[in-house]
C-alpha cells in the first residue's frame, strides 16, 4: 500500500503533466487562431463551399480546444482538493 507521501508525489507529477498539456493546448489554440486569421484574409469573399467547410472545421477545432482547457482546469481543481484532503 502506498504512503500518503507517495500519493502526493504522484499527483504532483500528474498535475505537472496536465500543466504541460495545457501549455501545448494553449499554443495550439494560438496557432489555430493565426491560421484562421490568415485564411480569412486570403480567402475573403470566396464563398466557396469547401472553404466554408474548412473554416467551420477550424472553428470546431477551436471550440474543442477551449472545452479541453476548461475540462483540464476542473481536473486540476479536483486533484488539488484531493491532495488537500490527504
Amino acid at each position, binding site marked *: 500500500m502506498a504512503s500518503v507521501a507517495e500519493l502526493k508525489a504522484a499527483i504532483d507529477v500528474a498535475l505537472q503533466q496536465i500543466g504541460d498539456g495545457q501549455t501545448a493546448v494553449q499554443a495550439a489554440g494560438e496557432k*489555430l487562431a493565426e491560421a484562421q486569421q490568415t485564411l480569412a484574409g486570403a480567402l475573403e469573399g470566396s464563398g466557396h463551399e469547401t472553404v466554408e467547410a474548412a473554416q467551420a472545421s477550424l472553428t470546431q477545432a477551436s471550440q474543442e480546444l477551449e472545452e479541453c482547457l476548461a475540462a483540464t482546469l476542473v481536473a486540476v481543481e479536483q486533484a488539488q482538493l484531493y491532495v488537500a484532503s490527504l
Partner: protein
Amino acid sequence: MSIIEDIGAQVRAVADELPLAQLAVALEKFGQATERLRWVRQESANPMGAPELSAATEHAETAGYALRVAQEQLSAYLAAIGLAADGAPAPKADERQPRHDAPREVAPPAPGAGPEQGVDPTARRWWAVRVAELTGGREGPSDEPDEQVGDSRELLRRVVTGVRSGDRDRLHRELRRAHADVGLGLAAVAPPLLRDLAGELLGHPPRADDLGRLRRELDGRVRDLLPGLPPPVLDALLTRVCRMPPPRRAEDQEQPHAADPAVTAGVVTGVLLDRLGRDLPADAVEREPSRGAHG
C-alpha cells in the same frame, strides 16, 4: 507568381502549419497524467479529476480530427481552383501524379475516356478502397463519387438510414461513394452524438464500468456491417464514449487507417439509433456538436 498562386501558397501554408504537433504533445502529456492518476486511484475511490481529464483528452482528440478534416478540405479547395496541394499550378494531364483522392469539384472523366496513364486508380480513390476493405465489399467502377452528398452530416444521415434499413449493400454503397473529405468528416460530426445515444441505451452517462457492456451490445452488429474493421478501432471509439483514456497500442500494432475511426463512428451511431428504435433527430444533423462534459 500569379494572384491565384499566391493565394494557393497561403492556403497551403495554413494547412501545413495547423497545430497537430502541439495537440500530439498535449495528448501525450494528458495520457501520462491519466496513467499517474490511475495508479493513485488504486488507493482511493476519489476520482480526483480523472473523469474531467478523460473529457479533456476527448476534446483534444476531436480537435485533432477537425484539423485533419480541415486539411483535406483545403486540399480539395486548392485542387478546385486548379492548384496542386503544394500551391503550384496543377500538372497537365499527361504528367499527372497519383493523387490523394479526387476532390469534389473536379469533374469525373468523360465517358469512354481511358484510364490515366501511370495512375493507380486505388491511389485516386483511397477512401473507397478502404471502405471496401472494411465492409468486405468490392470497390468497382460503378462507385463514382456521389455529388449530392456535400457534407458529412448528410452522409451521416444516409449511413444511419442504411443501418436502420438493414440493407448492408446500401450502407456500403453510401460509404464507398462518399468523397474522402466528406467521409473523414464523420469523425467530427458523429462522436458528439455517440455519448448521448450510449447514455440512453445504458440509462446513465457512460462510464468506465460500462465499456464491457457497450462492447457486448454493439460489437456483433458492427462486426456484421464492417467485417474488415480491426478490433482496436471499435475499442478506441468506445473508450472515448466512456470517457476513458485511449487503449494502449501494442508495439507491433499499426496506426489505424485514417478512414477507420470515421466509418466506425458513423456506423456505431446508426447501430445505436437502431437499438433505441429511433431515427437521427432532424436537428442532430444540423446542430453544432454538443459541448461540455457529460458525467
